[in-house]
């Protein structure tokens, strides 16, 4: 391995519209999509992209970079750059956990290039932006020359690096519904340094129902083979009266549920251990942000 250069030979394509891009995907084999390149180029240099005859650069397709707000929610183009998301005031006021997650990613130079869709399609179990989208009940818009389908964000991931995308499909947009009611959100991340990928990440999005938890969704990164949506544990909290002991019990429950691994960033034991505090703190923080006492 020599990361000074890319040893693989490939053809470079740059469609100017979505239809052209989808046509390329349906006609050609072994196409990889280049959005920000912050994962793809690194992998090419490290020779871990086995099948690529074509690199399709989607940066000429304007509609993939757009953001659109409606009463129902926001639609973010898949190739919207992270920097444009984190500096979007409206995004921050509606979906603070998402902008907190994006700000927690990498360094500014990387966030200038990287796209939110890339964070999904790279399908790393550590992907920071994924948790908030799952917790907000986001839906992914997937297009091909055959048509468009919608998939809940929580169902998008199959395994490390593997998603539900078919070979002729691409992620074109992310829809996130506007949270309703007394909502509170929290994203927290532990990493060795600010620009490092997560040892652990956690997202909580809840709607308060007086002194009780109304709806709640939680997710974690870097604890499983894919971004982990804590569906059952979250569901079990709905309707419960919020208390410090509930927060701590939930931390214990999540920790007990996890089966993380040792890697070069930390250990499985540490992950399970610290999860307890992290969950309890994030739950309390989201609760407080929802206006709960």
């Amino acid at each position, binding site marked *: 391995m020599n*990361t*000074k250069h890319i040893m693989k030979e490939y053809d470079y394509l740059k469609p100017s519209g979505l239809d052209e891009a989808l046509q390329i995907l349906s006609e050609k084999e072994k196409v990889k999509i280049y959005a920000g390149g912050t994962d793809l180029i690194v992998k090419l240099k490290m020779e871990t992209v086995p099948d690529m005859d074509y690199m399709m650069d989607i940066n000429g397709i304007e509609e993939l970079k757009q953001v659109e707000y409606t009463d129902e929610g926001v639609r973010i183009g898949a190739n919207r750059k992270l920097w444009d998301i984190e500096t979007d005031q409206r995004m921050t006021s509606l979906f603070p956990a998402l902008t907190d997650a994006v700000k927690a990613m990498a360094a500014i130079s990387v966030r200038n290039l990287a796209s939110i869709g890339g964070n999904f399609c790279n399908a790393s179990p550590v992907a920071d932006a994924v948790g908030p989208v799952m917790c907000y009940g986001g839906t992914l818009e997937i297009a091909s020359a055959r048509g468009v389908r919608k998939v809940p964000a929580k169902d998008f991931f199959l395994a490390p690096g593997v998603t539900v995308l078919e070979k002729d499909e691409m992620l074109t947009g992310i829809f996130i519904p506007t949270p309703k009611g007394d909502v509170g959100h929290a994203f927290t991340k532990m990493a*060795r340094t600010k620009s*490092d990928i997560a040892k652990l990440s956690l997202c909580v999005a809840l709607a308060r129902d007086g002194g009780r938890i109304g709806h709640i969704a939680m997710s974690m990164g870097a604890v499983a083979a894919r971004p982990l949506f804590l569906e059952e544990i979250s569901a079990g909290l709905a309707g419960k009266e919020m208390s410090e002991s509930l927060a701590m019990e939930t931390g214990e429950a999540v920790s007990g549920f996890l089966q993380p691994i040792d890697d070069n960033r930390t*250990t499985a034991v*540490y992950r399970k251990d610290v999860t307890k505090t992290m969950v309890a703190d994030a739950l309390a923080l989201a609760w407080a942000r929802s206006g709960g006492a």
Partner: protein
Amino acid sequence: MKKNLKLIGNPVPRHDALAKAKGEQLYSDDWVMPNMLYGKVLRSKYPAAILRGIDTSKAEALPGVHAVLTAKDVPHNEDISKFGQMRDVGGGFEGLYKVLATGKIRSKSEAIALVAAETEELCEEACKLIEVDYEPTEGVYDPREALKDGAYLVSSEDASNRIMRSKIECGDIDAAWAQCDAIVEGDYFTTPHEHAYIETEGGMGWLDENGVITLRVGVQVLEHYRTVAKIMGLQHTKVRNMSVPMGGGFGGKEDITVETYLALLVTKTRRPVKMIWSREESLETHAKRHPEYLHYKTGATKDGKILAQEVSIVMDGGSYTYLTPWVQMYSTYAAAGPYNTPNVSIVSESAFTNNTFSSANRGFGGPQVNFAHERQMDKLAQKLGLSPVELRRRNLMHNGDPLPTGFIPQGHNALPELLEKVDKALNASPKPERLPDGRKVGRSIACAHTVYGRLTFMHDSSRVSIRLELDGSVTLRAGVPDLGGGQASSLCQIVAEELGLDITDVHPYIMDTHLTPLSGTTTATRQLYMSGNAALKCAGVMKGRLMETASGILGYPVSNLAMGDHKIYLVNDPAVNIPFVKAVANLSNDGGELETITQFNAPFTEVPDLSNIKGQLNPDLTYTCHGVEVAVDEETGEFEILRIIAAIDAGKMINKNSCEGQVEGGAIYHVFWPTHEDLKWEKGITRANSFSTYIMPTAADVPDVETIILESGGGLGPYGAKGVGEPSDNSIAPAVVNAIRDAIGTDLNLNLMPVTPEKILNAIRGVDMEH
């Protein structure tokens, strides 16, 4: 000392600042030549093996490949490692330098073959086609194991893995323990440390029209051209390095890098060859700071007077000797810390292992022992019931106090003052137990004494030349490798100051082995001290000539004249003057010498007896003190650095910007060394071989550094300056760990690097992970 300095101490822009800011500086990889080839090194697949054979035929047959070289193609494959010294030191200090592998493979970084081809991609392919017959062997990866009888022998050439053993003793250590009321003992380990310069090793080589091997390689030691000549069997006049500014060095470019490889490839192909190492190659191949295993036993009376310090050090030298013996001298010399200690015993040993070799890294053996002795100080303070600051206050060396070798440092020792200043700054407000968010707060202060200038038994010298131009500007020439510290610009500032000019009137031509005077290495924090003094001396000679000339014109004795504002004037009546340029013209018209070269010599001593080192080893010391405040999350073990106070006695600042830059950069250089920076060595393999896995702080991880720079005027450099480059990174590492200790209230798990949040969390819970 000159009183009214106009330029010295000012924050002047360096001559190369604009080019670097605009991206116009041409670094190693920015240079291209017509018809050039690319070069690559094939390195070992195993950290330990016997090299049974190499078949290069398939690689040679690949179209576009122009050379595949192995050890048999090297005219003189072995030499003694040299580092620019003008004196043969011998005596176990100079080890084997081997260009390409023969016999035993000593590490994964061992160079086995060289390739030159039309493209970098072809080089990669050719390397894959070279068939190497290895017999993998067990190897040894811990120097303590390597020193045992019957250990695996790392090299084919030596009968033992021991590189060097050295000892410093004073007083009677055995008798001293009985008088101690408190004794603390501790084991410490310091990790290998990466320099992490932005620019990896590399450069370009070609044969000039007269057959001279010409290199354009950024290095800290220009004098490696002599080694290249010896390897090639050529006269020293036939190898030239034009050199080029480096994108950082920090000691990692003190050892020879690509020079011999380029010389061999250009000689074989007779075409220009460029070789640039990838980041992975750089991280796996170049030297690291020596990992050290240290044992300390420190004793004091109940009123806090240190009586005894017993230290044993085992250093991992890795695969080849390189600078290990020199680094070892620094570790041994500094091991007792900057404290008056009447009874001292320091024994150090270094050993070969099958790890990447260890060599110079900013601080050069100082930071390892500093980490250990400053950890000891805080433990001792705890045991005595004294504050760590008070214990230091009671024991710090003052002017006139001897080091354990008996030598009394000659320059000023400002440590007592530095300690008070940092204490005042750090504790300006009482330490809160916790932050509002619940995290515990810890504070700590650590001290260090760090040498500047090379070991005096190397008989160091430097040369600088200046030439007066007929328009009144000045050309300065010096073989000063500039690694970004502003080494060359400071020389211009000194010359401009002395001649009463602006800094823009003096332009430096630097670092060409055969067209600039050899100024010695940019290592050992020596350039300002050595070449600065040479420049000062050189300017003085030229000033004398100009003053004589002006004296003749103005009709006043030289003693009544001064230089300034581009004039030579009568001190009592500045209206009586002649312009500087007119004095130059007269000097020229009269056949005076407009060009001069001067040499400055450091103090010279004899090679010490390693079994009982006495006396002077270095010219002088620079003193530093770091204060750190941290917040520790007791539920996760995570910590945040809240404040860094970096204090130093610079003697005299030459360029304020450069000096502050060194002090800030030095602090950040080591702030995460004890906790985050981890190469993850596993049996000779560097697992963290990229900057995504070797974790360093960015601006987002550290606070602004609060600098306190004293100017005592008590250094041996020009205007009383001391060296600051390496001292700046000493004493921060123990301050970080001691601050964590202050927050969590235990010494558990804080002694063997890396001190990770995982270990801190266990320490808080009382779980020992170090035994």
